[in-house]
């Protein structure tokens, strides 16, 4: 369930004109940028970019980059891109700049098979490399095996579940954890090739036979390393993405100075998807509305933009 609020009647030409006016003169009228862009869906944003180009022979995105700065600019830039292009940019940044590989795990595991395909296509267009090529070059060993398997997957999306298979693969996973071989090829095979419904059945079977969830058991297993962290994130993204995102936000606020990258990423990438559900979960776990947490921890235009995406109407 999305939080994005879009007015009934939208004229992309008017929007383009209003944005242009917002850029003109001294300084920039950020309020207009927010009131327009934060209330348009992906298709409309794309059309606004086209209309802007038609009217002014200028790339709206480039103009925005020069007009606004900081966290606000980063958020608006990510927001205005097509979702698959956005994910391609996020993946590239994660690979080349921040080494936040969990972003890649998120994209690979939360998106649908077709969406992930679109991301891979967008990545070709933007970076003249395949996503898997760059993932492979920038990672090694077990992390590479896991990430490559995740980003190249084109999972079957049917609802069919084979319960016997779920049980046997849950056993394989359990044995691998018990033998301290969580990087075993079988673990990777199961997690990176099975359909999501099959995997959820597998995780349920694991919980039924072991009494605890696989992610909890993994936590207890020794050797905390980056691979294990990413493995747990992959499982959580496949199994309970809403809970995963709520935790990302909760941790982002706790961090000293906040993790704006994470806050922006979750809100921007989920506003048109399931941010409403994340909001509800956040409130039930923290007794504080997400809007309030965002308002407390962020400021200025960046804050206003995020709140607008969260559903605040002026």
């Amino acid at each position, binding site marked *: 369930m999305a939080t994005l609020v879009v007015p009934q009647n939208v004229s992309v030409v008017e929007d383009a004109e209003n944005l242009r006016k917002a850029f003109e003169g001294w300084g920039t009228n950020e309020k207009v940028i927010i009131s327009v862009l934060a209330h348009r869906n992906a298709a409309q944003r794309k059309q606004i970019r086209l209309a802007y180009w038609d009217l002014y022979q200028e790339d709206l995105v480039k103009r925005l980059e020069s007009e606004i700065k900081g966290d606000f600019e980063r958020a608006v830039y990510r927001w205005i891109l097509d979702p698959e292009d956005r994910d391609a940019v996020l993946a590239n940044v994660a690979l080349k700049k921040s080494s936040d590989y969990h972003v890649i795990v998120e994209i690979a595991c939360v998106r649908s098979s077709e969406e992930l395909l679109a991301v891979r296509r967008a990545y070709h267009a933007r970076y003249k490399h395949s996503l*898997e090529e760059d993932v492979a070059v920038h990672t090694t060993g077990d992390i590479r095996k896991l990430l490559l398997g995740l980003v*190249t*997957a*084109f999972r*079957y*999306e049917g609802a069919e579940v084979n319960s016997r298979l779920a049980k046997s693969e849950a056993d394989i996973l359990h044995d691998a954890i018990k033998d301290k071989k969580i990087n075993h090829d079988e673990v990777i095979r199961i997690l990176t090739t099975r359909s999501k419904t099959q995997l959820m059945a597998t995780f349920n079977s694991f919980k039924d036979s072991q009494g605890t969830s696989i992610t909890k058991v993994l936590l207890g297993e020794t050797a905390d390393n980056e691979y294990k962290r990413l493995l747990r994130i992959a499982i959580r993204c496949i199994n309970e993405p809403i809970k995963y995102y709520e935790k990302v936000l909760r941790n982002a606020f706790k961090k000293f100075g906040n993790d704006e990258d994470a806050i922006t990423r979750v809100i921007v990438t989920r506003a048109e998807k399931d941010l409403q559900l994340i909001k509800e979960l956040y409130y039930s776990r923290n007794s504080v509305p997400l809007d309030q947490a965002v308002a407390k921890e962020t400021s200025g235009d960046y804050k206003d933009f995020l709140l607008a995406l969260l559903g605040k109407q002026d």
Partner: protein
Amino acid sequence: MAHLQELEALTKALSGLGIDEKSLISILGKSDPARRTTFRQRSTHFFIEDERSFERWDDHRINLLRLEFVRFENALVLWAMHPWERDARLVHEALTLVPQSYRVILEIACTRSSEELLGARKAYHSLYDHSIEEDVAIHVTGSERKLLVALVSAYRYEGPKVSEDAAKSEAKLIAKAIKNGDKKNPIDDDEVIRILTTRSKPHLKAIYKHYKEVSGKNINEDIEAADFILKETAECLCNPHAYFSKVVDEAIRNDADHNTKKALTRVIVTRADVDLKEIKEEYNSLYGVPLTQKIDDNANGNYKDLLLALMTRD
């Protein structure tokens, strides 16, 4: 005398690839009991002398003949199919015959364009309710699994841009892995797999070019001695016309087994709309005989006519 010629014609009608239906009808169909007895007595490869004084069909030969009768039907059905369904079915069938059929999986993964391979993966979902990578991972074991799963999952960048520096250093990596081939199988080398399964085809061609400078020999000379899977992967990726020519030539040989023979249909049908012309040229330059003539000499009846029709369009 006419009897002898007829006998020869009948023998030819029942040997090679496919069946000469017309000759069988005109000779055998019009034969009287005495002629047929002669046919049975003289065709000792088809009929055996039974202890109760009659000539009996050899069961094994009947089974082989059945395959030849059906060769035309299979070719036609495959030809009429959507290329995506074709490739999906071919891979699925190959998985039931591994490991002799690794070559088919390899061939499809490496010689199709990125979009064609994607289409095959989609069709696979529809046909088999599983993802292609899921099934390949389950049916293929050993070192080949990593390679084949990665090959079928690739979505290679298809633009011309190549980084010569990366190509040079990757040529060195591959040369080193091949040189150490007796200690460690190159297809177990993570870097070799990374390069072969994620790099774009133009990039791989650049690697082959640099390989000669680095190692003094052509990559295909050095790989000759290595694992056949490595050899065929390298060839499929960068010299598919030579690969297809060889596969087709093997299929036409007298000593070809059932699986090898199937390659003739597979190659002609799957490449007829793509690069059959180039394959014909390559075949001619490799073997000094036009492929059409080879097929004319070694195939029969409707099967032969269908293949020749596919090969001489436009």
